[in-house]
């Protein structure tokens, strides 16, 4: 092991704990940083808009993609069998994992068979979802994330804060400091090109010495048994071309029926994600090279359950472009880590509760239900409607905070009784007028940064009774 590697301890720090509202409040203590984060992501949203407007049939493409995924979800069982048969015929080994634990065990066992303790991995949100890095670390295996953004957060001991832009919450000066510490770049150098060059040199040594490469999968084609991995950095290709063994990990929903469908999805993916016309490398993997192995791990991990739910199955159409995050006004102002889950933002908020309602009960509430996410989604997932539906499920299942449940029952009772509502309204207005401190105080979250409405002399109902003939 080289000196450089002994220096690097890529053990992940524990994620900050707390609910989204608390974590977002912490993020908001540095308003300049919130502004910077918001503007950076808004710029990407604008790039996405420009790219979309260059395609006159953009909305048709979204509908078509959604329709193709409808077909896939309706026929997932047969398409998976078809894919497996084709992949085996191509010379790949296919593994099935029911959950994250089994996925991690399978990957580990392949590494054990190969007798390796070091591996390179290109970006895969599935392995994040399954906690593969932590699992392998516990078993003494060193994983090098080769995507630049992922490598940055890995060196920092953090999880990605965005599925496409893992270190979008890091400023270049901070990356300069991190690289100075771990890669030995000169102190104070924050030149992106220089730092990227340093990362290239650092990663090249990993690529050249690792025998096993792990990748994710963007699309798997049932009719051919091939799969496509999209990267801007070519790191998936570099890793797999130099390794003897390629392990590709994919959720079972990554399937599409035909190769020609890529013509729809690849046009949508990069434009939605970053506003590029296409991802720099769309690499097709079909069969292992001579003397090499290709393993494909198909992972369920809650997807079958999601598929069985009429309300939530559409979320399985997701192609992980991240557009919903870039457009989400809440995400931009709360940062990815406030979602305390591998998939952040609006899409994460509808995926996470399916895996653990108790742990993620707060996430569907981290939204104003503005609906922008559903409009940018390249596969037309009804994200904000699903957020609303999750809220109902969570409170019905008893995961709503007690105080909120009590308040809501009280409000429902008052609002169902016209006389009580009128009395309550009058009292509220009198309080605001004569004892404003009862509402305008530090205990009222509204009042922290906003004035209370000025109470009018009379309600509309009272005005109408006096000034207008009753109907």
């Amino acid at each position: 092991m080289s000196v450089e590697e002994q220096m690097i301890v890529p053990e992940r720090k524990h994620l900050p704990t707390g609910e989204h509202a608390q974590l977002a409040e912490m993020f908001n203590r540095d308003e300049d940083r919130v502004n910077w984060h918001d503007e950076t992501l808004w710029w990407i949203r604008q790039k996405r808009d420009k790219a979309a407007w260059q395609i006159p049939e953009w909305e048709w493409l979204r509908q078509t993609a959604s329709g193709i995924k409808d077909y896939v979800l309706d026929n997932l069982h047969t398409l998976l069998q078809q894919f497996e048969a084709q992949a085996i015929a191509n010379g790949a080994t296919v593994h099935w994992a029911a959950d994250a634990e089994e996925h991690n065990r399978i990957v580990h066992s392949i590494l054990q068979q190969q007798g390796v303790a070091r591996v390179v991995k290109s970006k895969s949100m599935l392995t994040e979802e399954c906690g593969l890095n932590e699992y392998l670390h516990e078993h003494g295996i060193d994983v090098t994330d080769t995507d630049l953004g992922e490598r940055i957060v890995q060196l920092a001991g953090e999880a990605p804060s965005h599925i496409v832009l893992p270190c979008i919450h890091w400023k270049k000066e901070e990356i300069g400091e991190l690289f100075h510490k771990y890669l030995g770049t000169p102190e104070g150098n924050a030149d992106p090109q220089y730092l990227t060059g340093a990362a290239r040199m650092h990663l090249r040594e990993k690529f050249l010495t690792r025998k096993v490469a792990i990748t994710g999968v963007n699309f798997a084609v049932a009719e051919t048994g091939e799969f496509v991995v999209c990267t801007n950095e070519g790191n998936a290709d570099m890793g797999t071309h130099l390794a003897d063994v390629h392990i590709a990990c994919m959720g079972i929903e990554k399937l599409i029926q035909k190769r020609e469908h890529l013509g729809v999805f690849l046009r949508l993916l990069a434009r939605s994600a970053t506003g590029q016309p296409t991802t720099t490398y769309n690499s097709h993997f079909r069969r292992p090279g001579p003397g090499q192995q290709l393993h494909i791990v198909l992972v369920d991990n809650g997807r079958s359950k999601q598929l069985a739910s009429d309300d939530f199955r559409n979320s399985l159409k997701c192609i992980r472009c991240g557009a919903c995050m870039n457009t989400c006004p809440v995400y931009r102002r709360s940062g990815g880590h406030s979602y305390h889950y591998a998939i952040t933002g609006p899409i994460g908020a509808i995926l996470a509760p399916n895996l653990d309602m108790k742990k993620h009960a707060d996430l569907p509430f981290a939204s104003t239900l503005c609906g922008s996410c559903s409009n940018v989604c390249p596969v037309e997932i009804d994200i904000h409607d699903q957020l609303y539906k999750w809220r109902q499920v969570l409170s019905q299942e008893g995961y709503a905070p007690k105080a909120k449940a009590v308040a809501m029952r009280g409000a429902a009772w008052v609002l169902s009784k016209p006389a009580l509502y009128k009395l309550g309204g009058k009292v509220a207005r009198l309080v605001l007028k004569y004892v404003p401190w009862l509402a305008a105080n530090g205990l009222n979250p509204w009042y922290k940064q906003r004035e209370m409405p000025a109470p009018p002399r009379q309600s509309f109902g009272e005005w109408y009774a006096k000034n207008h003939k009753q109907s």
Partner: protein
Amino acid sequence: MRVALFVPCYVDQFYPQVAIATLQVLERLGCEVHYPARQTCCGQPMANSGFEHLQHGCNELISELFDGYDYVVGPSGSCVLHIKHHLHANNEQAAARIRSRVHEFAEFLTDILKVEKIEAHFPHKVGMHQSCHGQRGLHLSQMTELVAEPFSKPEQLLRMVEGIEFSTLDRKDECCGFGGTFCVFEESVSAKMGKDRVADHARNGVEVITGADMSCLMHMEGILRRQKRNIRVMHIAEILNSR
């Protein structure tokens, strides 16, 4: 044309002038307007908080009070959208009738009354706030996310007003962060969103922020007043009622 006036609870209690303007504009345009006096709330505060199952009291009231009119009209896109999508009652036929006849004030003027001329005078520079539920839910105006021809029903009406000027915002349809109970349960993000929206209007020389949903305007008003900014909020009905 018999129109029932639906006045959302917070408008009734805190912004009576908005309901008065709505009523007066509708009457001026020849509608026979009725105000069912026992109305309270559309039930959205409970439903958006995950307690849709508690809104049946509101639903029963609405289906009892608002059935039998040609149209139900309210000055709030969000509350109207909620009724349109979520009103169910023991008398499901009444509920269905109301769901199909409820309209937000501006779209009622453009789509049902097909208003082409309004006598109103308002010599101020306004900034349009596109409230999300009105815009993305009721399609009162085109959404910037979509590759589609722009239009705006509220703006179409405001363009008939004499003396009015429009400001162009940097972000045309970003959410103000109100979000119902979101504004208290996610206070920091909510307030930050409101501050950013208000700053956009201020940067672009707006005197009056207007829109088709009073709840967003209430949120921004709270921030404007805290920041002591010289910008007012007015519901579109108030501007159309200015002479």
